[in-house]
């Protein structure tokens, strides 16, 4: 199939985050992460456990915008928190800011005491990062998001976890950041962010220019792979026929 769009590359890059996870709960926050988790469930990892985003485990992934299908479990918020503490979960959160050291902020911009802009609050980010494998999705890679130091640490980076001790590092497992420009991991110096691939048509320099700190790059940096025909068919025909993905990542 031809004419692969950026949003389709992103969806497969996100799906790849969950490909090796086995039988765990995929918790995507937001539209493209939801598409990616459902794509992984349909292709690379049928053992993945997915939910309707409200309170049900679904046996088969529904299209975006729908949450119906065969139910295989009940997952109200109290049980989500049980799974967080118990461990078998890989969450992909958003990030209003993320810094070189891998700390994420969804709490507030500016000084916490009286923020310039109040956001959601820390939600489950602190607990997610010390309990579960954690990835992030950034729909618009920019110097506003990728900052030297976040204003409030919600999600905990490696250095901060190490400073807090073994209780914080024992299950700490930052995995990937997928953006509209590329894919990063946390294998830089001391757990710093590191660019591992750029999407087709994106140069490393484009990513550097959109990053507010001196970005490390992997020695074997690659171009993010394009979706297979099977994946494209799953995205276009089954999971997102209404092309909602284009709203978040325009072509």
């Amino acid at each position, binding site marked *: 199939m031809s004419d692969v769009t950026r949003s389709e590359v992103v969806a497969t890059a996100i799906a790849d985050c969950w490909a090796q996870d086995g039988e765990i709960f995929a918790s995507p926050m937001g539209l493209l992460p939801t598409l990616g988790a459902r794509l992984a469930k349909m292709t690379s990892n049928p053992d993945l456990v997915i939910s309707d985003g*409200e*309170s*049900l485990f679904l046996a088969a992934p529904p299209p975006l915008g729908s949450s119906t299908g065969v139910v295989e479990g009940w997952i*109200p*918020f*109290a049980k989500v*928190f049980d799974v*967080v*503490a118990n461990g078998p979960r890989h969450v992909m959160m958003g990030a209003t800011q993320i810094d070189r050291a891998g700390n994420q902020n969804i*709490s*507030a911009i500016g000084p*916490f*005491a*009286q*923020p*310039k*802009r*109040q*956001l*959601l*609050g*820390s*939600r*489950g*980010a*602190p*607990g997610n*990062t*010390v*309990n579960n494998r954690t990835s992030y999705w950034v729909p618009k890679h920019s110097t506003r998001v990728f900052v030297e130091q976040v204003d*409030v*640490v*919600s*999600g*905990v980076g490696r250095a*901060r*976890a190490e*400073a*807090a*001790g*073994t*209780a*914080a590092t*024992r*299950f700490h497992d930052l995995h990937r950041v997928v953006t509209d420009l590329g894919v990063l991991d946390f294998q830089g110096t001391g757990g710093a962010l590191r660019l591992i691939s750029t999407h087709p048509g994106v140069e490393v320099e484009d990513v550097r220019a959109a990053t507010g700190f001196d970005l490390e790059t992997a020695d074997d940096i690659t171009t993010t792979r394009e979706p297979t025909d099977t994946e494209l068919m799953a995205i276009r025909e089954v999971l997102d026929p209404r092309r909602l993905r284009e709203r978040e990542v325009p072509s």
Partner: protein
Amino acid sequence: MSMRPRDKRMSLEEVVGQLESGMTIGIGGWGSRRKPMALIRAILRSDLTDLTIVSWGGPDVGLLARAGRIRKLVYAFVSLDSIPLEPHFQAARQNGTMPEVVELDEGMFQTGLRAAAQRLPFLPTRAGLGSDVMANNPWLRTIESPYEGPEGRETLVAMPALELDAALLHLNRADSHGNATYLGPDPYFDDLFAMAAARTYVSVEQVVDTAGLTVDTPVQRLLLSRMLVHGVVEAPGGAHFTSCTPDYERDERFQRTYAEAAKDDGAWAAFEARFLAGDEAAYQAAVRELGDE
């Protein structure tokens, strides 16, 4: 001699009459879902102020913050769900009009309620370690495990009990004694709030007789036992404009009206005059009138 337990039905105003300024009040539901909004509206009509509010925050927090009733807010998030950011909460934070906030991780928040429910001073949790939740709440303490683990003695967050003077909840059905069912997708943490509170007041869509609670409903949906409940209010539409599935879904149109009005003092004054100036019956009538437009 009657073997029936006591009748706890009361009015919204009677509930508010049992609350006092300065109290710590837990509010059930989640975000913009199954919030005890009729009780919140009744607080807005009262003189209650200086409150410490503990909530999975939604428009309950927004309305109380806008009205200046909150001295201290304990939260992990405040959101309208379909509208991610709660505009009154945002404004109160950005303008510095809420004297004190305690922003927690969700797991810490739940752990604090659990500690209170179990009458413990604290419970250990991993959540919060390494984050600015600890830095922004410097009174929070850690505790070293007395036990040797695979990686030594772990130092965990000692999450203090979130003890509540009162909990306000909205469920679908109750009997007059306080046994209550939720019929929607998620119990949220309403039972935990009830156990963490010295007194619990529950408003419901409908009061039915005890047998009616389980006539067409699995017994597992009985979330609250009357042991935990001090007052029952029949308040149809009492969660409006938040969702109360399956009785009604969130009134998205009304919520948008609310959020739009929040952006400007004049628009908010008009919203208050139209919807919040009268009693609960007047509110429900004004909502119906908007629906007819």
